[in-house]
């Protein structure tokens, strides 16, 4: 078992190596010059060239790649061109809102999705099922930014319950900061609850048809116990995978939502970095997010070990 | 009811196929090995039917597929008509393919659901370069008639047929290339009892009509006794006993064969079995027992059984046994 964990870890490294390469390639073929942006509208070509040299943007692509990989391996993602600080620091500073946003929306999504999914699978074809499925499908069809805009318009602008944007000023309390996450988390959570609901329903349907559920019933236990103890625990295994996937989707959603709500998170950072041609930031963020995703998946694989006795790598 | 008498297979000819020391290992998790087939040898005479029986997981299917090189064997030889099939390059093997065919167990997954019957049979005809046009249409009709279907079934899709009919189509596909040798892998186990007999009769008929040589894989001992001239009994990848059906059934020499015959349920309430000779389960082929693989369940095992792998010995009349105690008189 230890050996297979090591195997998986190795596989993870291979995936990360590919990720690093993909990231580098994508970012470096991008047109647009960070030096020109930094120097402002009236900079001269010579100034720009000088800055490029200083930023290490010269040399062949291969050289740049070599330097980059060398840095990454040492945990050095480079220096943000625009922000003039190490990429790791820039990312760390923005991790909090993204982290909480992801967690909250995942929580909201799960709290809505699991019960609804379970019940609509159980009452398959009932009015409840039809309504729940339709609502879920509706939620999955709404662009999250659009929902965010509507929520902002209503709760923040009309009712004034929340700030429209930002993440509190300097020294804002944690509570104050988290207050800024209510609307974005709601927008994201609602949209992603749809996916989890549908998936929960599907895997419950699957499991409810399994033989051991029939066995459980034949033992004379209550339906509720059949559903929760015997069916749901089995359905949970594929649902775990989807939760991992949703976490990735949420980061995607966060990119747009953070922009709508002006949250100083990683997503926002990436979008502005794209506009600012801040290569190291884009690389670093893509790398960290992809790395997190790979890690989350690894974690989920490990969770399987706990939940599912059949899995022995 | 008048039964048609079918001529039994021509005996005592050179074997069409001679399997020698066939071994197949599959890789398993964590670098371990599944010993699916281990040093299996048997001959199949031209025009005869050889039955391959054994419990689930004993390597029957793998042996059959290895001979056709549908899985690449790990070792051994399969001398077919004087040529070792295992020594052929993939390209050379292509030209042998149509001489050896296979019929599968599951009548549902053995036909591509998206192809019409004509296309399924046509694919087989293509394989031997059959020309297109009217001749092909006639040939398809002929094949369908041969297996007891109607020529106008050619335009239908597999899901429009019952299990028995599908099995007939599978047989027609195998026969389309006019093979000399057919592996029939449990062709009737998935069928309803009332249809099994139809398919068995068809196989018997075809064999006679076309002079086919048949390797018939089965679970069901009574079917093998009925259909096969010779029988090979396998257990955990190895041959326990083989020989002419009559002899093996009448006087089994290996404890495993005896146990199998004793446990097979017979539709006769007056002959109820009183004791169960075999205890326990078939061990894992990943680490089979040392020595005789059967010893862990063998009612007659002695300490020596764990020491040596019993050689397959000839006990007369083509009857072979792999048991160190086969000469001892046993109660």
């Amino acid at each position, binding site marked *: 078992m230890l050996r297979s964990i090591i195997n998986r870890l190795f596989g993870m490294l291979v995936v990360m190596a590919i990720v690093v390469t993909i990231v580098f390639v994508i970012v470096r073929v991008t047109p647009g010059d960070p030096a020109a942006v930094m120097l402002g509208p009236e900079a001269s070509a010579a100034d720009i060239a000088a800055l490029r040299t200083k930023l290490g943007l010269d040399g062949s692509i291969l050289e740049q790649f070599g330097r980059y990989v060398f840095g990454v391996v040492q945990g050095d993602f480079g220096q943000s061109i625009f922000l003039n600080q190490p990429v790791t620091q820039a990312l760390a500073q923005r991790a909090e809102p993204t982290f909480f946003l992801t967690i909250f929306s995942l929580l909201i999504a799960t709290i809505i999705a699991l019960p609804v999914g379970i019940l609509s699978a159980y009452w398959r074809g009932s009015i409840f099922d039809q309504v729940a499925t339709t609502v879920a499908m509706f939620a999955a069809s709404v662009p999250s930014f659009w929902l965010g805009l509507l929520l902002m318009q209503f709760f*923040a602008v009309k009712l004034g319950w929340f700030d429209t944007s930002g993440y509190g000023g300097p020294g804002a309390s944690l509570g104050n900061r988290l207050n800024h996450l209510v609307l974005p988390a709601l927008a994201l959570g609602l949209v992603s609850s749809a996916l989890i609901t549908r998936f929960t329903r599907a895997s419950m349907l699957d499991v409810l048809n399994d033989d051991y559920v029939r066995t459980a019933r034949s033992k004379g236990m209550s339906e509720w116990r059949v559903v929760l103890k015997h069916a749901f625990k089995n359905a949970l295994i594929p649902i775990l995978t989807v939760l991992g996937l949703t976490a990735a989707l949420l980061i995607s959603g966060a990119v747009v939502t953070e922009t709508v709500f*002006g949250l*100083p998170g990683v997503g926002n950072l990436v979008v502005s970095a794209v506009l600012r041609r801040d290569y190291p930031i884009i690389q670093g963020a893509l790398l960290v997010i992809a790395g997190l995703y790979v890690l989350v998946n690894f974690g989920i694989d490990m969770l399987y070990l706990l939940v599912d006795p059949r899995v022995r790598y | 009811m008048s039964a048609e008498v079918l001529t039994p297979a021509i005996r005592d000819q050179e074997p069409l196929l001679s399997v020698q020391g066939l071994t197949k290992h599959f890789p398993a998790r964590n670098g371990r090995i599944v010993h699916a087939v281990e040093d299996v040898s048997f001959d199949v005479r031209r025009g005869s039917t050889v039955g391959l029986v054994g419990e689930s997981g004993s390597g029957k299917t793998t042996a059959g597929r290895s001979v056709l090189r549908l899985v690449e064997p790990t070792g051994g030889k399969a001398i077919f008509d004087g040529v070792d099939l295992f020594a052929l390059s993939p390209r050379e093997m292509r030209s042998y393919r149509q001489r050896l065919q296979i019929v599968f167990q599951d009548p549902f997954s053995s036909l591509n659901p998206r192809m019409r019957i004509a296309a399924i049979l046509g694919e087989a005809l293509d394989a031997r370069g059959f020309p297109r046009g009217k001749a092909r249409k006639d040939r398809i009709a002929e094949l369908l008639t041969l297996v007891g279907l109607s020529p106008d079934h050619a335009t239908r899709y597999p899901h429009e047929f019952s299990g028995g009919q599908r099995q007939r189509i599978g047989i027609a596909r195998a026969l389309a290339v006019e093979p000399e040798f057919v592996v029939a892998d449990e062709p009737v186990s998935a069928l309803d009892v009332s249809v099994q007999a139809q398919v068995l009769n068809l196989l018997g008929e075809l064999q006679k009509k076309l002079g086919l040589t048949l390797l018939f894989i089965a679970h069901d001992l009574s079917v093998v006794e009925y259909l096969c001239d010779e029988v090979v009994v396998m257990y955990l990848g190895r041959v326990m006993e083989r020989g002419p059906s009559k002899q093996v059934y009448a006087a089994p020499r290996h404890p495993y064969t005896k146990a199998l015959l004793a446990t097979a349920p017979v539709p006769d309430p007056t002959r109820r079995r009183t004791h169960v000779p075999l205890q326990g389960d078939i061990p894992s082929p990943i680490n089979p027992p040392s020595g005789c693989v059967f010893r862990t369940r063998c009612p007659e095992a002695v300490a020596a059984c764990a020491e040596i792998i019993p050689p397959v010995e000839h006990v007369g009349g083509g009857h072979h046994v792999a048991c160190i105690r086969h000469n001892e008189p046993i109660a």
Partner: protein
Amino acid sequence: QSKGGVIDVATIGEPPTLDPMASTADLVGIVTQHIYETLYTFDKDWGVTPLLAAEMPQISADGMTYTIPLRTGIKFHDGSDMNSADVVASLQRWMKVATRGKQAAETITAVEATDDNTVKITLNKPFAPLLSLLSLNNAAAIIIPSENANEDPMTKFVGTGPYLLKERKPDQFIQLARFDGYKSRDGESNGYGGARKQYLDEIRFVPVPDPNTRVEGAVSGQFAYVDSLPVESFEKISGGKTAPVLLKPFGWPVFVLNTKEGLNSDIKIRKAIQAALAPNDMLLAAFGSEDFFAVDGAMYPEGYKWHTEAGTEPYKPDGDTEAAAALLKEAGYDGSKPLRILTSRQYEFHYKMAQVAAEYLKAAGFQVQMDVVEWATLTKNRTDAGLWDIYITHSPFLPEPSLTGIMSDTSPGWWVSDKKHEVLGAFNAESDPAKRVALWAAVQQAVYDEVPAFKVGNFNALAAQAPNLKGVTPAPWPYFWNAYIESN
């Protein structure tokens, strides 16, 4: 007017740097002018007035030597005193690092300290814009401690301004706090000049890059001051918790033409473009209502001393499609080569003007190709003459006309001609302000004759301000010394 209070100011984004020498971006200037100070600055009439200098310089008769007396007792944020050595080091850094400094460096032969509190600048020819260059807050000639002057990029943000940098969280806020050691000039405040009062305890600049989010923020009253709002949200803001502030006029959108390569190297084509464009529709589409723009061909609007109508006849508010078509024909344009308009959506009004312009250009017979790219790409691509024929930008009305982009031979557009050099040279060499106004008319005439760029008109800027925030003077680069919270 009491001390105290903290304000949040929403800005259009995160400044790329807090080193105002290193950037000409308006945003950098807005934020850093609170931290650093220059020797001179502008009063409310855009006249140059001393800031860290004790008074206006003594200019030698030949206009080649500037002797600048410094104020004494000025402290840097790190507690050290400012002296002439710091000023010399800072100006030298400026000439090396800042684009405007480099421009000035061409005429500057020496910067030296004559004593502890006097600095002398020697030129190789008269150069009238020098004082304006020293006064501007972007690519600014800020004064920093000499020991920091060797740094590039700058890592210690130490200035003499009324507010010092307390904390910066990129993309979250830049927190400035009152500098207790600040020594204000005496007397009244006058524009950027005169006394600077430090009522507020803290000023926080919060980047809100999305204009709509800024609007929402303004409406919901989340910020004390919101900069750079889309003018069309005027009404919406009026209904909200902060009051709209219209800065009228703020600046001018401009279509810069590539005189170096491609279609627009032919002056006839440039003339055709000049005739084809219809500023009226372009501005209306871009700014929504006449309240927010003015159709005006003069390069400086009325109210500026530089205002003149000289040469503006070709500027036709509704365009002259026929004249343009005729010019095109004369130029022998066959429509096979597209006119490439390079623009971005960073500023939505650029893009809208481009869309309307494209329609008018097509009507005149042009084949038009719109290259809508990100601002970052635009700033890169515009430096490559092979990539574009027109690019769109805008500028505030700079206090010194010669600082305008097209006046530089090397800035994208690359307008170079004998006529230009003649009129601009005369303008730059003249140091008498009155005479310079007359000379400017000739420059404007040349711009209209040779069409290196097309000025679309004047536009207003919208900001929003909390009702209890007082003492903020509307300005293109808003500043918050002198501002205070009115307690009720």
